[in-house]
Each structure stands twice: as C-alpha cells, then as structure tokens.
C-alpha cells in the first residue's frame, strides 16, 4: 500500500484530483442511468402482444447462437425409474385445447412435406411404430419441475418411417394445434434428439384431453412451453416458425 506525506499545496492538488474523480463518477453514473432508461423504453418486439425490448431480443438471439452451437445431441436428459414418476401430472396451460371445437374421432395429424404434399396420419398408425418410454424431470419455464412418465414414438423414428429424411434437413419444425390457437417452432437438432417423442401416453395410459389427446410433443431438452399438446399440423422450414410464447416475450430457443 503506497502512502506518503505531502505539503499543504500538494495536498490541495490531491483534493482537486479527488474532485475530478467524483465528477467522472457522477458522469458515468448518469450515462449508465440514461442507458438504462433508453433500454427499458425501446419498442417491444411483440406488437400488441407486448413482448420484450428489441435489444434484449437481439441478445437472446445471440444466446441462442452460442448455446445451440454447444448443443450436443449425444447428451441425454437424466432418466428416472418409473416408481419415481408422479401419479398426478400437473396440467399447465390450456391454449389450443378447446374441446368443444375438437372432433377426437376424426383427428389425423397433417404433415406438410417440403415439396408441398400432405400426409395424413392417424393415431393407430403412429402406435404401430416402435414405442419409446421416458421418465424424466419435466421443467417448466416458471421454475417448477416434476418427474413424469411418457410414452410414444421417437420423432427420429417417425421421420425415418415416413421417409421424411429430406424434411429433417430443414432447420426447424413447426407444430400447430388443430384449432391453430397454440403453435411452437423447434430447431431440428433438438427435434431429432433421441429422447424427443411424439407422445400418446402418460403413466402408461392414453393422454387425457387436458394433456393433449391424442398426440403431443415431449421434448426433454426444452422447457415445457415447447411440449405442444395436441398436434394438428407439422411442417418444416429454414426460417423460424411462429412460436406462441416467443411472440409474448419469451426466449425462442428455451433449450437445455
């Protein structure tokens, strides 16, 4: 620690220097405050839906580049024994699940191929494919998580079976509920992850209506918001498909 004695005149010089430092301190503080005011008053990116300040969205997009860059498809989500799965699975969110508008008997998933052709696939057909089950800690963006047990067909197996290999070279998959009220976009590496399921069972039984009967997405490498209930339409794109919660200010990637 440097210390020394100075005479009165030099002491005044130090006083002046100290004064200048405080000037810089308050200027920098003022600049930081102005920067903050600027940031919080930037237009929101979601239009009438609200959303978040555009500069923050830009940072989230950069975060996405970084973390999708380190995404390792071989890293698996931790699995649990079935005995640890919750009996009562929490129901969170009912967007896109209006039962009065839904004809369960007539349901078929509409798959829009990149060449414009459509595939209509029923539940029985999907159940013919090899079944995969997973018990994992389902994580909600709100902060809660629960260990739950799901069953269905791996998206990767599904895509292979229906000859969707050209489609899996797209960057994104878009999923929409039959009533088009809820929709998500998912990057292809996460979609092709070996634990991502087109899911038709919870706790070994068919999905109840409020869990998205007859078919939903279970994608353990994402927060719950991406686990769309009741898939109506599946499509493929290189541009980000519309995403319900991203339009409302949430991160688009929401990947783990």
């Amino acid at each position, binding site marked *: *620690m440097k210390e020394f004695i100075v005479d009165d005149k030099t002491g005044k010089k130090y*006083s002046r220097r*100290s004064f200048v430092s405080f000037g810089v301190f308050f200027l920098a503080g003022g600049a*930081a405050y102005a920067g903050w005011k600027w940031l919080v008053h930037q237009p929101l990116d979601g239009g009438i839906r609200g959303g978040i300040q555009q500069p923050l969205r830009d940072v*989230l997009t950069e975060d996405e580049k970084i973390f999708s860059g380190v995404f390792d498809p071989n890293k698996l989500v931790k699995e649990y024994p079935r005995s640890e799965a919750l009996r009562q699975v929490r129901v969170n969110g009912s967007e896109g699940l209006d039962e009065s508008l839904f004809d369960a008997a007539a349901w078929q998933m509409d798959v829009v191929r990149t060449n414009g052709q459509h595939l209509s696939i029923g539940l029985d057909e999907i159940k013919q494919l090899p079944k995969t089950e997973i018990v994992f800690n389902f994580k909600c*963006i709100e902060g809660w*998580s629960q260990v739950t047990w799901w069953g269905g067909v791996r998206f990767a197996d599904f895509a292979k079976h229906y000859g969707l290999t050209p489609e899996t070279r797209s960057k994104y998959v878009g999923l929409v509920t039959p009533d088009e009220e809820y929709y998500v976009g998912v990057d292809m590496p996460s979609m092709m992850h070996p634990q991502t399921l087109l899911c038709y069972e919870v706790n070994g039984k068919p999905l109840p209506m409020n869990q998205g009967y007859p078919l939903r997405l279970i994608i353990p490498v994402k927060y719950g918001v991406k686990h769309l209930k009741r898939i109506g339409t599946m499509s493929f794109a290189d541009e980000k498909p519309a995403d319900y919660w991203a339009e409302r*200010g*949430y991160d688009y990637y929401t*990947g783990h």
Partner: protein
Amino acid sequence: MPKKIVYKHLLATRWMHWINFPVLAIMIWSGLLIYWANDVYQVKIFGVTLVRFFPEWFYKLTHIPYRLSEGMAFHFAFMWLFFVNGLLYVLYTAISGEWRYLLPKKGTLRESWQVLLHDLGIRKTAPPQSKYNAAQRLAYTSIIIMGFGSIITGLAIYKPVQFQWMTTLCGGYGPARAEHFILTVGYVLFFLVHVFQVIRTGWNNFRAMIAGFEIIDQPAKEDTHP
C-alpha cells in the same frame, strides 16, 4: 497542514466495483421477476413459517408480478456483464498482486472474531491490519466464491442437459435453483452490512473507492527530534 496520501484501490478495481453494483442490482431484480412465477421458498421452524419469500405486500411494492418473460430477457442479457466483469476482477486481482491484501491468511478467522467484537463495541481494540482487516478479507473472499457459485448454480438451471455435471454437482435441478436463490439472499445481506460499514467508516474510506486514495490531515510534528 501537511497531508498523508494513502493509495488504496487501483483504478481498474474501482471501475469493476462500481460496474458490478448496478449489474448485480439488475440481476437480482430480474431474478425476482423470474422467481415470482414459482415462489415456493420459505423458512420454517417446527412447521411455523417464519419468513415467506415473498409476502404479497412486497411484490405489490416492487411491481414484481406477471413479468416472467421480461425477467428472463434481462437476466440472460445482463448475465454476460456480471460474468465478464467478475472474471476480469478475479484475473486482475490475481495478476496485480492485490490478492495478497484480500485472501485470508493464517489467523484471519481468529482476528475476524476480534474485529466483529470490536465493531459491536464489546472489545476495545481491533487487531492490527493492512489494507483490509481480517473480517474484510473473509467477506471479500466469500463474495467472490459466491459469485462463482451463482455462475455454477445458474448454468445448472439454465442448461441442465449441456452442463449436466454442474447440475449434478449442485445436487440436482431443484436444489440448484434453491442454491441460486440462497446465494442471492447472501448478496443482499452482504450489501446491507457493506453499506452500513462504509457509512460507519466515514468519508475518506468512501472517497478511496472513487478517487483511489485517502487524504488524511497530518498534524504538525512537534516531537520528531530524538
């Protein structure tokens, strides 16, 4: 009157200290916006709730509710500033040699106790010190370790698959979230004590964190002759 000039804090240290203040404040505020969406933590003793994080009046007062998306956006933007500023501080402190004044050494724990007793008015004398006293060494080292803790527990809940080893290290996803929260409570407690101590210590000490040095009146020396 002659003055004694005592250099205390290096320029970079001062900048990083003052940058950290608003950045950490924004991290805590945006963290609260996130925490509100699942505000389950409380301190219970024998089934009686002592503290609930947080009571309704607190949320109302601070305009916390229904701002989860905003909280996440700010948190995942300003985390970079918090991380880079903290990393630079650690590197600079290591390279500049300032760590010598900061890290605990032999006897720090015992002396910290003496400092505490002195500051509480129970003990008359404080143990001798250099730039920082023993209690400061402990506190300022702890806060850096806590910073590391926040980054690890934060990554453990932000990317629990890609950084699974961190989640495991924290004891799981749920525990990592709780630890992240407890560390934040720690910052708030640190802040309260820190500000109180700065006010108590007085102007010259505070000036050193802005100008870098203290200016101490040096009474004319009358008995310097042997």
